[in-house]
């Protein structure tokens, strides 16, 4: 029962202890003052309520000493709290020289993380226990906030300007990673996990290029992208109202509402991803987002590799509203914590097919940006 009512977040960084100390002192003060005010109010209103026979003689209306007391005591207490808070804050803002650099890019609605040695991850961050880490963050679109409750650290991720934050993890485990700043439709899903590993384990992970096991094949990473980019929101195992199925697409001949039929090959696939509206598959509208500028060539190649094997027994990643941004590919699973539990929850409620809310970019802004580019 008690586990349903967690009273505090895990404490897993160098700041947590000091943080909690200040927090609980503040809490104690709050309780003390609330109790003081509460008790006095109740006591007075009971004692002096109309009709009671008590001494009401010589009421006082002004009392300088009393006023000064309750001005100065809160003032001093406030200054003390300010001091401790500010001290912790300055620590939080002063990364040590030997901190490992990690770079964070926030975009609607995922975290893209790059380690200095080139390892990239999405919506997950792997760090070694006991090693200070400094994150340099920037956003590609709107404001986000990189928030790790267990570390008591948070910073806004701002477009056009770098912000930094640092911490030293002190406990092995998997922790929440959130986007704290409201950033649009899927703000609440822009999160993932922070995995703190033993230094040895972490070294292994790094050596494997960011996989706890061997690296993935092209089609495997394509499969991941397929869900990371939200393709699976529309393209399922069968043709639906929303989009045609891509299963077994390779090599077939397609009909279009606005072009003559063509055979599906790699360049057609590429075309369909980047500029889907040029050849609209009959029976469908221009609903597919334009991915031009959204995907790197590497990603496109991987996607195509995946689509080529689709239909030859490779499953389509589960569609859901949940964690469509990415499936952590690593020890998050190994640790037995399934980030997709709610996936099942939703399946149960038969909501696999909710309308996708993905909106990769504001179309108008994109259009302006594109126009501006051509100008220059």
């Amino acid at each position: 029962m008690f586990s349903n009512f967690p009273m505090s977040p895990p404490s897993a960084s160098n700041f947590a202890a000091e943080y909690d100390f200040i927090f609980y002192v503040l809490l104690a003060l709050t309780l003390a003052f609330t109790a003081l005010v509460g008790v006095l109010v109740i006591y007075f209103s009971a004692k002096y309520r109309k009709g009671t026979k008590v001494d009401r003689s010589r009421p006082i209306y002004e009392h300088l000493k009393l006023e000064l007391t309750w001005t100065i005591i809160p003032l001093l207490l406030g200054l003390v709290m300010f001091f401790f808070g500010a001290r912790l804050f300055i620590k939080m803002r002063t990364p040590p020289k030997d901190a490992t650099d990690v770079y964070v890019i926030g975009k609607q609605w995922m975290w893209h993380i790059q380690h200095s040695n080139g390892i990239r991850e999405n919506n997950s961050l792997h760090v070694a226990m006991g090693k200070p880490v400094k994150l340099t963050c920037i956003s590609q679109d709107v404001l986000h906030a990189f928030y790790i409750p267990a570390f008591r650290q948070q910073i806004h991720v701002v477009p056009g300007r770098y912000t930094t934050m640092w911490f030293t993890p002190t406990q092995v485990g998997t922790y929440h990673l959130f986007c704290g700043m409201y950033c649009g439709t899927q703000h609440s899903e822009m999160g993932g996990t922070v995995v703190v590993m033993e230094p040895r384990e972490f070294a292994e992970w790094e050596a494997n290029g960011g996989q706890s096991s061997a690296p993935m094949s092209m089609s495997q990473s394509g499969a991941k992208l397929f869900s990371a980019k939200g393709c699976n929101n529309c393209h399922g195992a069968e043709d639906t109202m929303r989009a045609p199925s891509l299963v077994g697409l390779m090599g077939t001949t397609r009909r279009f509402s606005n072009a003559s039929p063509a055979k599906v090959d790699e360049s057609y696939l590429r075309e369909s991803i980047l500029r889907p509206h040029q050849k609209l598959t009959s029976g469908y509208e221009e609903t597919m987002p334009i991915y031009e500028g959204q995907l790197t060539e590497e990603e496109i190649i991987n996607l195509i590799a995946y689509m080529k094997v689709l239909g030859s027994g490779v499953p389509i990643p589960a569609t859901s509203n949940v964690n469509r941004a990415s499936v952590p590919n690593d020890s998050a699973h190994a640790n037995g914590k399934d980030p997709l539990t709610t996936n099942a929850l939703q399946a149960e409620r038969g909501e696999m097919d909710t309308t996708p809310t993905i909106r990769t970019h504001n179309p108008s802004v994109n259009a302006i940006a594109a126009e501006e580019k051509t100008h220059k």
Partner: protein
Amino acid sequence: MSATPIDNTLLATGPVEEPVNYLNVDHSIKSWLLTGDHKRIAILYLFSTLFFFFLGSVAASMIRLELTSPVGMILESETYNKVFTAHGVIMIFFFLVPAIPAVLGNFLVPLMIGARDLAFPRLNLLSWYLYIIAGALILTVLATGGVDTGWTFYTPYSSMYSNSQVTMSIIAVFLAGFSSIFTGINFIVTIHKMRAPGMTWFRLPLFVWAAYATSVVVILGTPVVAITLLLVVFERVFHLPIFNPELGGDPVLFQHLFWFYSHPAVYIMILPAFGVQSELIANFSRKRVFGYHFVAFSTLAISALGFVVWGHHMFISSESMYQSVVFSLISFLVAVPSAIKIFNWTATLYKGTIRLQAPMLYALGFMGLFTVGGLTGLFLASLGTDVHLTNTYFIVAHFHYVMVGGSITAFMGGLHYWWPKMTGKIYNDGIAKVNALLVFVGFNLTFFPQFIAGFVGMPRRYHYYYLIPEVQAYHILSTAGASVLAISFVIPAVYLLQSLKSGPKASANPWGAHGLEWETQSPPITFNFTETPIVTDEVYDFDPVSEFEQERANAEMTDPGNDAAVTHTGEELPSGGTE
């Protein structure tokens, strides 16, 4: 307070014929829509702000329903975002900012200072029309798809990315802002220039002080947010790239400008509540407010200091660390005047003759709830602790404690207290008392769990929280509380409306309270006083000792509806010795 005696004969005539008052002078719709009478405008505001409170509450109910499950119940994320934005925008700009000043303030300021009307009646009416136009616009926004930026309209989301009705909602907020500016100008001029003879500054009821301080904040702050939001519109509509990071603009600048108004705005919402609180505490404990001067000056201190703490909303927004430190320090300083008020009110109770009627119960509830809300504000003002708590439900809980537990509780108290004056009718105090308790319980049940959820790490503005499903229990508690709270807001609507129909008639001074507003008939005549009152006495001039004696002699006083109460103004009570 011995002012010119009021004409009691008018009140004593009984059922024969209702005396002329501001409500029944003219029943035509036109006379309402073109009125210059501050009391009528207050009534217009009362119904319009309550309408928006209702809308905002429906949104709140949807939020709470949605949050019972980590994966949502009925809405999509996009809709959810629009719902909480509508909730925030409506509750703040369309309900709480105008609620106390434009309803109670409009009604009471001229009455309390002994004026015939506000200085600029037509400006006052214009302000209401602006509010209505703004309201119509925001309704249009809701009807045409809503807006999803959060009530803070942060750039660059609002300026470059949101596809919702940002422009129209900003124009609505802009107009609502000017509506409150006009009210503010009116109050400032009226309080400076139109006080009755003998009504010196330190004889002003504390509510008037609060209205004055609020107005100053309004006129100094609101234009800044107006222009800031206008710049966002310029960016969306005319492509002026003021906050556009791609062209070298700074989106964080928006936050500075926004909070330059919006922090003071939280004091716009709480200061009038403080004023109401002072009136209630004094009049229901039959005692002059303890440390009147301190309470009055702390009001001014809050409104001045409140202007230099805005950066505390931006501690982690990439604001410079050094500046954050300064803002945090001042935030702790601004807590001190609030502390002074709380303690002075507590001390007022000491040796009072406390009547635990419904308005007083709200006032007592306010003491507890605002203290919790204010003190949790200190967690946020403290730099280190804010880093983790910002953007979580801890903040949501903090501001609902101060805004709902503080301002709305005070508003309810004030509404009950002045209801007889405004409508001339007495409501059922028994139900009202029970309901006051219900508000208190429901409120705590709703928002207390959110403190814990926030500390655990539940971010705000989250539609789904499957990423952190362990806080679900708190959300369910909170929703349960909100249901109780909902009931406790429906009940007053019922019994207050019913009192209009069948409530007993109120005498001029049903509470036996002090203040010029109680010296004219209930409801007052159009120009408030038959002749300009002359003030010769201090404010809240009660004598608790004689009050006590009087009570024993006269038990009927308990019933606020009893006409006998009319005569029981302070002076007429026999001044007795101690026990």
